[in-house]
Protein backbone atom coordinates (compact mmCIF):
# COMPACT_ATOMS: atom_id res chain seq x y z
CA UNK A 1 0.00 0.00 0.00
CA UNK A 2 1.38 3.33 -1.07
CA UNK A 3 0.96 6.28 1.31
CA UNK A 4 1.49 9.75 -0.16
CA UNK A 5 1.13 13.09 1.58
CA UNK A 6 -1.15 15.46 -0.29
CA UNK A 7 0.78 18.76 -0.37
CA UNK A 8 -2.50 20.70 -0.39
CA UNK A 9 -4.33 18.95 2.48
CA UNK A 10 -1.36 17.73 4.49
CA UNK A 11 -3.18 14.40 4.73
CA UNK A 12 -1.28 11.12 4.69
CA UNK A 13 -3.41 9.58 1.97
CA UNK A 14 -3.42 5.90 1.43
CA UNK A 15 -3.63 4.80 -2.16
CA UNK A 16 -7.39 4.25 -2.36
CA UNK A 17 -7.99 7.92 -1.68
CA UNK A 18 -5.90 8.85 -4.71
CA UNK A 19 -5.96 8.36 -8.45
CA UNK A 20 -2.78 7.68 -10.37
CA UNK A 21 -2.45 10.05 -13.29
CA UNK A 22 0.61 8.91 -15.15
CA UNK A 23 3.98 10.44 -15.64
CA UNK A 24 4.87 13.86 -14.24
CA UNK A 25 6.25 16.87 -16.12
CA UNK A 26 5.07 15.92 -19.61
CA UNK A 27 5.59 18.72 -22.06
CA UNK A 28 2.71 19.12 -24.41
CA UNK A 29 3.35 19.21 -28.15
CA UNK A 30 0.33 20.34 -30.10
CA UNK A 31 -0.37 21.99 -33.43
CA UNK A 32 2.79 22.97 -35.28
CA UNK A 33 4.96 20.30 -33.66
CA UNK A 34 6.70 17.56 -35.60
CA UNK A 35 5.22 14.07 -35.86
CA UNK A 36 8.05 12.76 -33.73
CA UNK A 37 7.43 15.28 -30.94
CA UNK A 38 3.69 14.62 -31.01
CA UNK A 39 4.20 10.87 -30.89
CA UNK A 40 6.55 11.28 -27.93
CA UNK A 41 4.05 13.48 -26.11
CA UNK A 42 1.23 11.02 -26.69
CA UNK A 43 2.89 7.66 -26.29
CA UNK A 44 6.48 7.56 -25.13
CA UNK A 45 6.71 7.15 -21.37
CA UNK A 46 9.44 6.41 -18.91
CA UNK A 47 9.31 2.99 -17.29
CA UNK A 48 12.24 3.11 -14.89
CA UNK A 49 13.37 0.65 -12.31
CA UNK A 50 14.19 3.09 -9.55
CA UNK A 51 13.55 6.81 -9.25
CA UNK A 52 10.33 7.91 -10.92
CA UNK A 53 8.18 11.05 -10.93
CA UNK A 54 4.44 10.68 -11.17
CA UNK A 55 1.32 12.75 -11.15
CA UNK A 56 -1.43 11.85 -8.68
CA UNK A 57 -4.81 13.30 -7.91
CA UNK A 58 -6.33 13.49 -4.45
CA UNK A 59 -9.62 12.44 -5.93
CA UNK A 60 -11.39 11.45 -2.71
CA UNK A 61 -10.41 14.64 -0.97
CA UNK A 62 -9.47 18.10 -2.11
CA UNK A 63 -9.49 17.04 -5.76
CA UNK A 64 -6.11 18.62 -6.49
CA UNK A 65 -3.36 17.20 -8.66
CA UNK A 66 0.11 16.87 -7.17
CA UNK A 67 3.44 15.25 -8.00
CA UNK A 68 5.19 12.42 -6.22
CA UNK A 69 8.75 11.13 -6.41
CA UNK A 70 9.22 7.50 -5.52
CA UNK A 71 11.25 4.40 -6.23
CA UNK A 72 9.48 1.84 -8.39
CA UNK A 73 11.69 -0.96 -7.13
CA UNK A 74 11.26 -0.49 -3.38
CA UNK A 75 8.11 1.67 -3.28
CA UNK A 76 10.03 4.14 -1.12
CA UNK A 77 8.43 7.58 -1.36
CA UNK A 78 10.96 10.42 -1.55
CA UNK A 79 8.40 13.17 -1.35
CA UNK A 80 5.41 14.93 -2.87
CA UNK A 81 5.24 18.45 -4.25
CA UNK A 82 3.00 20.95 -5.97
CA UNK A 83 1.75 20.37 -9.48
CA UNK A 84 2.40 24.03 -10.34
CA UNK A 85 6.01 23.43 -11.31
CA UNK A 86 7.95 22.26 -14.34
CA UNK A 87 10.47 20.16 -12.48
CA UNK A 88 10.99 18.64 -9.01
CA UNK A 89 12.16 21.11 -6.34
CA UNK A 90 15.90 21.27 -5.77
CA UNK A 91 15.76 20.07 -2.16
CA UNK A 92 13.82 17.00 -3.22
CA UNK A 93 16.32 16.26 -5.99
CA UNK A 94 19.14 16.57 -3.43
CA UNK A 95 17.31 14.23 -1.09
CA UNK A 96 17.01 11.65 -3.85
CA UNK A 97 20.70 12.08 -4.73
CA UNK A 98 21.60 11.28 -1.14
CA UNK A 99 19.63 8.05 -1.28
CA UNK A 100 20.16 7.02 -4.90
CA UNK A 101 23.50 8.49 -6.02
CA UNK A 102 23.72 8.95 -9.77
CA UNK A 103 20.00 8.62 -10.46
CA UNK A 104 18.68 9.82 -13.81
CA UNK A 105 15.21 10.45 -15.12
CA UNK A 106 14.62 11.83 -18.60
CA UNK A 107 16.87 14.92 -18.76
CA UNK A 108 17.22 15.10 -14.97
CA UNK A 109 20.44 13.90 -13.39
CA UNK A 110 21.19 13.38 -9.74
CA UNK A 111 24.52 14.02 -8.15
CA UNK A 112 26.92 11.41 -6.90
Amino acid at each position, binding site marked *: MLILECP*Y*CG*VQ*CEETELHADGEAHLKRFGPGSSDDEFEGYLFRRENPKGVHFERWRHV*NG*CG*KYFHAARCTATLEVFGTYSAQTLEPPKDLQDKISAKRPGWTWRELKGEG
Partner: protein
Amino acid sequence: MSEALLQSALNGAHSDGFVRVEELGVQGMITLRGDFASAGFAAAVEKVTGLALPAQRKISIGENATVAWMSPDELLVLVDYASVDATVAALTEGLAGEHALVANVSDARAFFRLSGDDGAVRDVMAKVAPVDFSPEAFGPGDIRRTRLAQVAGAFWSPEPGVMQVICFRSVAQYAFDLLRISSETGGEVGHLG
Protein backbone atom coordinates in the same frame (compact mmCIF):
# COMPACT_ATOMS: atom_id res chain seq x y z
CA MET B 1 -38.21 26.95 -2.60
CA SER B 2 -41.01 24.57 -3.41
CA GLU B 3 -42.34 22.28 -0.70
CA ALA B 4 -41.24 19.16 -2.58
CA LEU B 5 -37.59 20.11 -2.25
CA LEU B 6 -37.93 20.55 1.48
CA GLN B 7 -37.88 16.80 1.86
CA SER B 8 -34.52 15.30 2.71
CA ALA B 9 -33.15 12.44 0.62
CA LEU B 10 -34.30 9.56 2.84
CA ASN B 11 -37.13 11.23 4.74
CA GLY B 12 -35.37 10.98 8.09
CA ALA B 13 -34.44 7.29 7.97
CA HIS B 14 -32.73 5.96 11.06
CA SER B 15 -31.35 2.78 12.52
CA ASP B 16 -30.38 1.73 16.02
CA GLY B 17 -27.49 -0.66 16.17
CA PHE B 18 -24.65 -0.26 18.62
CA VAL B 19 -24.53 3.27 17.26
CA ARG B 20 -27.55 5.29 16.23
CA VAL B 21 -27.54 6.43 12.61
CA GLU B 22 -30.06 9.01 11.50
CA GLU B 23 -30.56 11.07 8.44
CA LEU B 24 -30.90 14.71 9.37
CA GLY B 25 -33.39 17.01 7.72
CA VAL B 26 -32.66 19.52 5.02
CA GLN B 27 -29.53 21.56 5.65
CA GLY B 28 -28.40 24.71 3.93
CA MET B 29 -25.02 24.17 2.31
CA ILE B 30 -23.07 26.65 0.21
CA THR B 31 -19.93 25.92 -1.73
CA LEU B 32 -17.60 28.89 -1.69
CA ARG B 33 -14.47 29.05 -3.78
CA GLY B 34 -11.94 31.80 -4.00
CA ASP B 35 -8.49 32.98 -3.05
CA PHE B 36 -8.02 32.50 0.71
CA ALA B 37 -5.04 34.83 0.65
CA SER B 38 -7.17 37.73 -0.55
CA ALA B 39 -8.17 40.07 2.28
CA GLY B 40 -11.48 40.80 0.56
CA PHE B 41 -12.39 37.12 0.52
CA ALA B 42 -11.71 36.56 4.21
CA ALA B 43 -13.50 39.80 5.10
CA ALA B 44 -16.62 38.82 3.15
CA VAL B 45 -16.74 35.39 4.79
CA GLU B 46 -16.33 36.90 8.23
CA LYS B 47 -18.93 39.57 7.63
CA VAL B 48 -21.59 37.11 6.52
CA THR B 49 -20.86 34.13 8.77
CA GLY B 50 -19.22 35.84 11.73
CA LEU B 51 -16.37 33.36 11.45
CA ALA B 52 -12.75 33.67 10.40
CA LEU B 53 -11.43 31.39 7.66
CA PRO B 54 -10.81 27.94 9.11
CA ALA B 55 -7.27 26.59 9.02
CA GLN B 56 -6.36 23.59 6.89
CA ARG B 57 -8.73 20.64 7.56
CA LYS B 58 -10.56 22.58 10.28
CA ILE B 59 -14.19 23.44 10.79
CA SER B 60 -15.42 26.53 12.64
CA ILE B 61 -18.82 26.18 14.23
CA GLY B 62 -20.57 29.44 15.01
CA GLU B 63 -23.99 30.42 16.24
CA ASN B 64 -25.67 30.94 12.90
CA ALA B 65 -23.21 29.39 10.52
CA THR B 66 -20.51 26.76 10.22
CA VAL B 67 -17.54 27.14 7.90
CA ALA B 68 -15.47 24.13 6.84
CA TRP B 69 -12.15 23.91 4.98
CA MET B 70 -12.62 21.71 1.92
CA SER B 71 -9.47 22.42 -0.11
CA PRO B 72 -6.94 25.27 -0.41
CA ASP B 73 -9.49 27.27 -2.39
CA GLU B 74 -12.83 25.88 -1.27
CA LEU B 75 -15.03 26.30 1.80
CA LEU B 76 -18.33 24.76 2.75
CA VAL B 77 -20.71 27.08 4.57
CA LEU B 78 -23.57 25.53 6.53
CA VAL B 79 -26.56 27.63 7.52
CA ASP B 80 -30.25 27.01 8.18
CA TYR B 81 -32.03 25.84 5.07
CA ALA B 82 -34.41 28.78 5.27
CA SER B 83 -31.62 31.33 5.21
CA VAL B 84 -29.60 29.86 2.33
CA ASP B 85 -30.84 32.24 -0.32
CA ALA B 86 -30.18 35.28 1.86
CA THR B 87 -26.70 34.00 2.73
CA VAL B 88 -25.86 33.33 -0.92
CA ALA B 89 -27.01 36.84 -1.80
CA ALA B 90 -24.96 38.37 1.01
CA LEU B 91 -21.84 36.41 0.07
CA THR B 92 -22.23 37.24 -3.60
CA GLU B 93 -22.57 40.91 -2.76
CA GLY B 94 -19.63 40.81 -0.35
CA LEU B 95 -17.45 39.07 -2.93
CA ALA B 96 -18.23 41.43 -5.78
CA GLY B 97 -14.94 42.18 -7.50
CA GLU B 98 -13.28 39.06 -6.08
CA HIS B 99 -12.51 36.04 -8.24
CA ALA B 100 -14.89 33.78 -6.37
CA LEU B 101 -17.79 31.36 -6.71
CA VAL B 102 -20.83 31.03 -4.46
CA ALA B 103 -23.15 28.09 -5.12
CA ASN B 104 -26.16 26.82 -3.21
CA VAL B 105 -25.69 23.05 -3.07
CA SER B 106 -28.21 22.31 -0.31
CA ASP B 107 -30.42 20.08 -2.44
CA ALA B 108 -27.45 18.15 -3.81
CA ARG B 109 -26.46 16.75 -0.42
CA ALA B 110 -27.50 14.26 2.22
CA PHE B 111 -26.64 14.72 5.89
CA PHE B 112 -26.29 12.03 8.55
CA ARG B 113 -25.57 11.92 12.24
CA LEU B 114 -24.02 9.06 14.15
CA SER B 115 -24.35 9.07 17.90
CA GLY B 116 -23.51 6.80 20.77
CA ASP B 117 -20.43 5.85 22.70
CA ASP B 118 -17.51 7.89 21.34
CA GLY B 119 -15.29 4.87 20.72
CA ALA B 120 -18.13 2.96 19.07
CA VAL B 121 -18.93 5.88 16.76
CA ARG B 122 -15.27 6.06 15.78
CA ASP B 123 -15.18 2.31 15.17
CA VAL B 124 -18.12 2.55 12.77
CA MET B 125 -16.46 5.37 10.84
CA ALA B 126 -13.17 3.49 10.77
CA LYS B 127 -14.93 0.64 8.97
CA VAL B 128 -15.93 2.86 6.08
CA ALA B 129 -13.21 5.52 5.66
CA PRO B 130 -9.39 5.25 5.31
CA VAL B 131 -8.73 7.66 8.15
CA ASP B 132 -7.06 7.43 11.56
CA PHE B 133 -10.00 7.87 13.93
CA SER B 134 -8.10 7.87 17.21
CA PRO B 135 -9.17 10.92 19.27
CA GLU B 136 -5.63 12.32 19.08
CA ALA B 137 -5.63 12.21 15.28
CA PHE B 138 -9.20 13.30 14.63
CA GLY B 139 -10.84 15.45 17.27
CA PRO B 140 -13.38 18.25 17.60
CA GLY B 141 -12.72 21.01 15.09
CA ASP B 142 -11.30 18.65 12.50
CA ILE B 143 -13.04 17.88 9.22
CA ARG B 144 -11.99 15.26 6.77
CA ARG B 145 -13.05 14.99 3.17
CA THR B 146 -12.48 11.47 1.90
CA ARG B 147 -14.43 8.42 0.79
CA LEU B 148 -17.10 6.37 2.56
CA ALA B 149 -16.41 2.93 1.08
CA GLN B 150 -17.04 3.67 -2.60
CA VAL B 151 -18.49 7.18 -2.50
CA ALA B 152 -17.14 10.62 -1.66
CA GLY B 153 -18.04 12.06 1.71
CA ALA B 154 -16.93 14.33 4.51
CA PHE B 155 -17.38 14.23 8.26
CA TRP B 156 -16.58 15.99 11.49
CA SER B 157 -17.20 15.40 15.16
CA PRO B 158 -18.95 18.37 16.78
CA GLU B 159 -18.71 16.75 20.22
CA PRO B 160 -17.51 13.42 21.64
CA GLY B 161 -19.86 10.59 20.72
CA VAL B 162 -21.26 12.37 17.67
CA MET B 163 -20.14 12.26 14.05
CA GLN B 164 -21.83 14.25 11.32
CA VAL B 165 -21.48 12.95 7.80
CA ILE B 166 -22.29 14.55 4.47
CA CYS B 167 -22.37 13.01 1.02
CA PHE B 168 -24.00 13.61 -2.33
CA ARG B 169 -27.76 13.19 -2.33
CA SER B 170 -27.57 10.80 -5.28
CA VAL B 171 -25.73 8.27 -3.09
CA ALA B 172 -27.71 8.93 0.11
CA GLN B 173 -29.23 5.44 0.21
CA TYR B 174 -25.85 3.80 -0.33
CA ALA B 175 -24.25 5.88 2.41
CA PHE B 176 -27.09 5.23 4.85
CA ASP B 177 -27.04 1.47 4.20
CA LEU B 178 -23.28 1.47 4.61
CA LEU B 179 -23.49 3.21 7.99
CA ARG B 180 -26.48 1.13 9.09
CA ILE B 181 -24.80 -2.20 8.29
CA SER B 182 -21.51 -1.04 9.83
CA SER B 183 -23.30 -0.22 13.08
CA GLU B 184 -25.47 -3.34 13.36
CA THR B 185 -25.51 -4.95 16.77
CA GLY B 186 -22.99 -7.77 16.71
CA GLY B 187 -20.56 -5.78 14.62
CA GLU B 188 -18.82 -4.01 17.50
CA VAL B 189 -15.08 -3.73 17.08
CA GLY B 190 -13.93 -2.36 20.44
CA HIS B 191 -10.71 -0.99 19.00
CA LEU B 192 -11.18 2.70 19.70
CA GLY B 193 -13.22 2.52 22.86
